[in-house]
């Protein structure tokens, strides 16, 4: 067979950013937002934005990060994972263990050091253990806390624990060709198993007490929370920016083509010679790792993590955000996560005024979830493209 080569028709190689103008837009807006929050913050600027609000905004950025991860795995690759919030929580637990251990160790060393003779290492670790685990009636440091004293080790675990879990689980699930709703249910089962496991007192993560006091950063205990909150805000903004860039790069180009093709017709992709399971596993694991990192940044700002955070419902909410924001476009996920989570904390936090209808008083704390549920049904039925779909509309209007 002959193939005619006609040089005129070869399209020039195109640059990543020119193909993806939204990335530049997003980076610019994120930078601007970071600058504004910093300038208005209590810790470093004019003090218009309270420390608490800075934390909420920083946490929202982390939620946006996990939302884009969810968007890649679901919106692009078609795997409706109901387990990504579990990976988020695992990242939080991994960093929480260090935060709690290191801070307690400082306290224990301080108090033991006041005695006539210096403490032994064993006394210190026993003291830390009984301080941390007294609440679940134990005074021994569980095996999984072996590296809790080392920041690099726990940082590695932030990536490794969600990554390895996703790898093993994904390998098992994809290998047996579990797809669609089955896969969703299976990931939900995984999440349920994990949260039930964490709820137990004897599994070494303090049962339903969870890990607390995470807002105190060892080595920076003197630094006021107002300043720490801005640091974490920066870190969250940086992580979101890098995550956005990473995922934008992943989903553009041929890899993006392949995973979208898998979403639309995975059998056909197999007949093209692609190892579909490998691709799914790659995407599932990569997004799980990013979710873990997002969690590791989120929980020091939240201050506490407990197994209820990991419950299956949280992962479903994640899907809700992405769906409302608009699947299959990264900025859609960001919009959805930011919009719904901020609206939710405003309405349930008592910030919104109740509406008096004469006969009936709408108390937002009671009715917000009803509204969210029904709104979500409406979005699924009438606006499958979500809020992000509006941008398509705007862009198409412009020549």
């Amino acid at each position, binding site marked *: 067979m002959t193939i005619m080569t*006609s040089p005129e028709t070869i399209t020039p190689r195109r640059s990543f950013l020119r193909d993806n103008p939204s990335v530049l837009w997003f980076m610019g807006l994120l930078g601007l937002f970071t600058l504004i929050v910093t300038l208005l913050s209590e810790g470093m600027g004019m003090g218009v934005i309270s420390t608490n609000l800075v934390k909420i905004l920083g946490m929202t950025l982390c939620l946006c990060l996990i939302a884009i991860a969810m968007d890649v795995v679901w919106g692009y690759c078609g795997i409706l994972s109901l387990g990504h919030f579990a990976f988020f929580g695992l990242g939080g637990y991994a960093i929480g263990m260090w935060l709690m251990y290191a801070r307690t160790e400082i306290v224990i060393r301080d108090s033991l050091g006041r005695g006539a003779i210096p403490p032994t290492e064993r006394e210190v670790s026993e003291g830390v253990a009984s301080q941390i685990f007294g609440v679940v009636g134990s005074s021994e440091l569980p095996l999984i806390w072996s590296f809790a004293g080392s920041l690099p080790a726990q940082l590695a675990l932030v990536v490794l624990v969600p990554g390895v879990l996703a790898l093993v689980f994904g390998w098992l699930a994809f290998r047996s060709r579990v797809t669609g709703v089955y896969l969703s249910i299976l990931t939900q089962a995984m999440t349920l198993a994990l949260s039930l496991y964490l709820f137990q007192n004897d599994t070494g993560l303090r049962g339903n007490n969870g890990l607390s006091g995470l807002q105190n950063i060892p080595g920076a205990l003197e630094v006021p929370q107002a300043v720490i909150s801005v640091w974490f805000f920066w870190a969250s903004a940086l992580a979101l920016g890098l995550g956005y860039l990473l995922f934008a790069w992943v989903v553009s180009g041929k*890899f993006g083509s392949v995973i979208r*093709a898998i979403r639309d017709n995975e059998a056909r*992709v197999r*007949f*093209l*010679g*692609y*190892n579909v399971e490998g*691709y799914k596993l790659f995407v599932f694991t990569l997004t799980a790792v990013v979710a873990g990192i997002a969690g590791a940044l989120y929980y020091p700002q939240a201050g506490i993590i407990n197994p209820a955070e990991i419950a299956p419902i949280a992962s479903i909410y994640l899907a809700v955000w992405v769906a409302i924001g608009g699947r299959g476009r990264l900025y859609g996920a960001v919009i959805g996560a930011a919009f719904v989570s901020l609206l939710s904390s405003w309405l349930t936090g008592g910030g919104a005024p109740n509406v008096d209808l004469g006969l009936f008083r709408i108390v937002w704390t009671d009715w917000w979830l009803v509204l969210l549920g029904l709104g979500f049904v409406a979005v699924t039925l009438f606006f499958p493209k979500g809020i992000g779909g509006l941008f398509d509309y705007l862009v198409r209007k412009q020549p």
Partner: protein
Amino acid sequence: MTTLLEVSGVSVTFDGFRAINNLSIAIGEPELRAVIGPNGAGKTTFMDIVTGKTRPDEGKVLWGEKSIDLVRMSESQIAKAGIGRKFQKPTVFEDQSVRANLSMALKNKRGPFSVLAWKATEADNARIVALADEVGLTERLEHRAGDLSHGQKQWLEIGMLLAQDPRLLLVDEPAAGMTPAEREHTTDLLKRAAKTRAVVVIEHDMEFIRRLDCRVTVLHEGSVLAEGSLNHVTKNQQVIDVYLGR
């Protein structure tokens, strides 16, 4: 002509129904082969078995010089080994551009990491353009595949099949929904492809088969009823019985 694919003694049962019954077919390289038969004769199931979609209960499917057994390989491994398939119903990725569709099918490394690092070379782009030219979609390279007409989708799928550069093409009813002119083009294309590789065509349209002018295998109830030139098989009494009904 050497034997490229050898299906021997293959049987498949669905819930007690024997779709394929001790089927043996050999395809050479290069060769153009037409497979015909009444509905339910097992034509599509035969393709399913070769491409790994269905696992046979017994029998062997041997491939290539090294006689690798395809039965134990996954769909993607079989595709990578050099077997391309066009489905009865055109299946292209409607959400993506014609270029992206062709680009995915190009014969490049298929692993996630190589694909992640992949950038279109001059040669790749040239090949895409040439393929588009071949199937008459040059003008529509940047359009969504979903916006193409039914016939154009058929063409795109054939283009993707050629892009894979397979040693064996399995083509299931390529002419369905095509105009007479398009059919002619398709026959030319298939005949040309069959000069360097093996092509197996399933088709109902006898006129189309006649134009292919090749060896014909008649399937009936999951096994081979007759084989030879079209003229030869149409004179076979058994074949006439099967087609006209007893």
